[in-house]
């Protein structure tokens, strides 16, 4: 049934693709194109086949493919459909974005997940006041790959930071004031963040109302935000961020977050799990630079004191290895099961360690090929010097169609974070169409 769903989805994708030939027409400005309607409907469909070259010696391979110890490759078909619509009346607006993800490979077979990424009602009684109630992403922070100060959002995927994200159910208000002089703008965003059964229940401790807030200034041409989140669901956290253009082609940004009383489950030297409590500090510093020949460089350094250190990761990899061997020899599942629980608690999450360097270089339209952007992205774990290197080419020359071919090549020794990922490499093609 799931396979049928995927075929149906791909057929739909092909059916909505535009006819490329014969796209030429005279340029005119038909005023009916700009007529404002109270409603809007749009969407996005995507097909994304991925080939994974697997590393049978890696810890995360052993954790996922323990029942197929010699598998060399995995071909996976992914599909996505996002539908969105809005309706406006007077000062009110309703907006919803529904996302469906489909996945098929011959290991896990079919997976399907449909959820509202956003669904909220807005009221805008004044230009300077806006009230939102519903499921929404707040998108705090200035970092490109990471946002340690995005207290009320899900973590973004640093391998694909421009992907749409699922929000949380909140109530928030924006108050904006503008001024003349060095302080040009101030805005205040208080947020109510409920966590109950069926409402943000995956966020933290249930049956609580949490409070968050952000204060934004544009001061001496610098964007500055100060934010906090407090409440019983998660430990209290406070942070700030900034962003400023030093010259027209050189921007710097940074974020800092302080979290009180974080809890982390770690393996100790004896191989036992223990919960460590303490403060956590995380920060990010970054820059964006555009050269005279249209090369954009984004460089960011991220530190998270709550991440695992090398020793803690080594104990985890060792536990996986022992569990895998025991399962292969005796069929004993105990060690692997324990490793899987630890993986879910944090060891297998993206960027689980402490220090990372992110470098992305993208060249706009080389050789005057319009809408063609080759890029190279490197995610480097500076604790163990392992890395994920991602070359890609993007073509957006056909209206509403986005084609991206991307590879991911892992480097790093055994016991290093990227060296223990399940793949040696991956190649993916993403064809996305907006309508």
């Amino acid at each position, binding site marked *: 049934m799931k396979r049928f769903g995927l075929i149906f989805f791909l057929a739909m994708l092909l059916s909505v693709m535009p006819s490329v030939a014969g*796209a*030429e*027409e005279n*340029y005119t*400005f038909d*005023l009916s*194109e*700009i007529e*404002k309607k109270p409603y809007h409907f*749009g969407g996005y469909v995507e097909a994304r086949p991925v080939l994974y070259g697997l590393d049978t010696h890696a810890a995360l391979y052993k954790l996922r493919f323990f029942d197929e110890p010699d598998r060399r490759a995995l071909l996976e078909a992914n599909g996505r459909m996002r539908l969105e619509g809005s309706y*406006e009346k007077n000062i009110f*607006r309703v907006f919803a974005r529904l996302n469906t993800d489909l996945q098929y490979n011959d290991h896990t077979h079919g997976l399907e997940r449909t959820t509202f990424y956003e669904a909220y009602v807005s009221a*805008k009684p004044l*230009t*300077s006041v*806006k009230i939102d109630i519903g499921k929404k992403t707040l*998108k*705090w*922070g*200035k970092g490109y790959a990471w946002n340690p100060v995005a207290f009320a959002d899900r973590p973004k995927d640093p391998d694909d930071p*421009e*992907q*749409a*994200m699922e929000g949380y159910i909140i109530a928030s208000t*924006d108050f*904006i*004031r*503008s*001024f003349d002089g060095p302080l*040009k*703008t101030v*805005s205040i*965003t208080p947020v109510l963040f409920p966590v109950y059964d069926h409402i943000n229940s995956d966020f933290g401790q249930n049956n609580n109302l949490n409070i968050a807030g952000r204060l*934004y200034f*544009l001061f001496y*041409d610098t*964007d500055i935000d100060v934010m906090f989140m407090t409440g019983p669901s998660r430990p209290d956290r406070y942070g700030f961020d900034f962003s*400023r*253009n030093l*010259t*027209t*082609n050189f*921007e710097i*940004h940074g974020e800092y977050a302080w979290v009180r009383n974080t809890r982390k489950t770690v393996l100790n030297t004896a191989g036992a799990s223990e919960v460590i409590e303490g403060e956590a500090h995380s920060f990010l510093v970054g820059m*964006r630079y*555009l050269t005279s020949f*249209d090369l*954009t460089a984004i460089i960011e350094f991220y530190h998270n004191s709550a991440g695992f250190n090398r020793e803690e990761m080594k104990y985890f990899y060792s536990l996986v290895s022992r569990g895998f061997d025991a399962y292969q020899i005796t069929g004993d599942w105990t060690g692997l099961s324990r490793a899987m629980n630890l993986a879910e608690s944090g060891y297998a999450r993206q960027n689980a360690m402490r220090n990372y360097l992110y470098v992305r270089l993208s060249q*706009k*339209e080389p050789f*005057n090929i*319009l*809408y063609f952007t080759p890029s190279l992205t490197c995610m480097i774990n500076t604790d163990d010097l392992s890395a994920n290197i991602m070359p890609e080419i993007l073509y*957006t*020359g056909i*209206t*509403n169609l*986005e084609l991206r071919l991307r590879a991911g090549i892992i480097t790093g020794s055994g016991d290093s974070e990227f060296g223990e990922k399940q793949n040696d490499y991956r190649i993916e093609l993403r064809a996305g169409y*907006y*309508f």
Partner: protein
Amino acid sequence: MLREKSLIILLLVFMACPAFAADGTKLLREIDRNLSPESYESYRKLINIEPDGKKKEFTLFTVKKGTDKVASVFLAPASEKGRSTLRLGENMWLNIPNVGKPIRITSLQSVVGGVFNNADILQLDYAVEYNVLNVKEESGQYLLQLKAKSKSVAYDQLKIWADKTKRLPTKIECLTEASMLIKTLYFKDVKDFGDGIVRPAVIETDSPLYKGYKSVMIMAKVKKRTFKDEAFTLTFMPNLESLR
């Protein structure tokens, strides 16, 4: 006696120069006001045309207030819808709805690709960014030579050819500090938009850096309108379309 005459001539030249520059500045301000009211709304279509004739079109709603505030939101195509750009003086931001928060962009980048860059799309008054060095008459038109007031301006020099009676530009050459031509803007199809706004409805541009490529900007519904300052803020960027 000769020394006295030379001194007088020199004095007259020195006195004439600032007067000429002042006239040039006045003329440039007139050109700015004729191109658009100080605060207005407009719709624009940008068309990038490739050497083989292939086109890509973008539709934007743009609002401007005073000398240093301008914002745009993309209405089409679907892949760009909802993207918004904001300029406050020399600061520029791009907000992509899916990506989230507004990111700072630079004047020389282009959010649409093609020959128009962000400075062209989020254009402030010329008199805000440039000093007039010189005004000449050439082929029945004014030729104004401008120099950027600071290094942060996208083009170091501009040459503006302007119609003497309408006081509207017909052609603008954008040059680097070393006088290398970056692009040429051609102003065409002067149209009455109502309420005293008479200006070119079409701006074409080409560039020796993009041989064979051309970009076109078509204006529609240019209207005087005032806005609250709060509409030109990062927090308001995701709501720009509500001003339509």
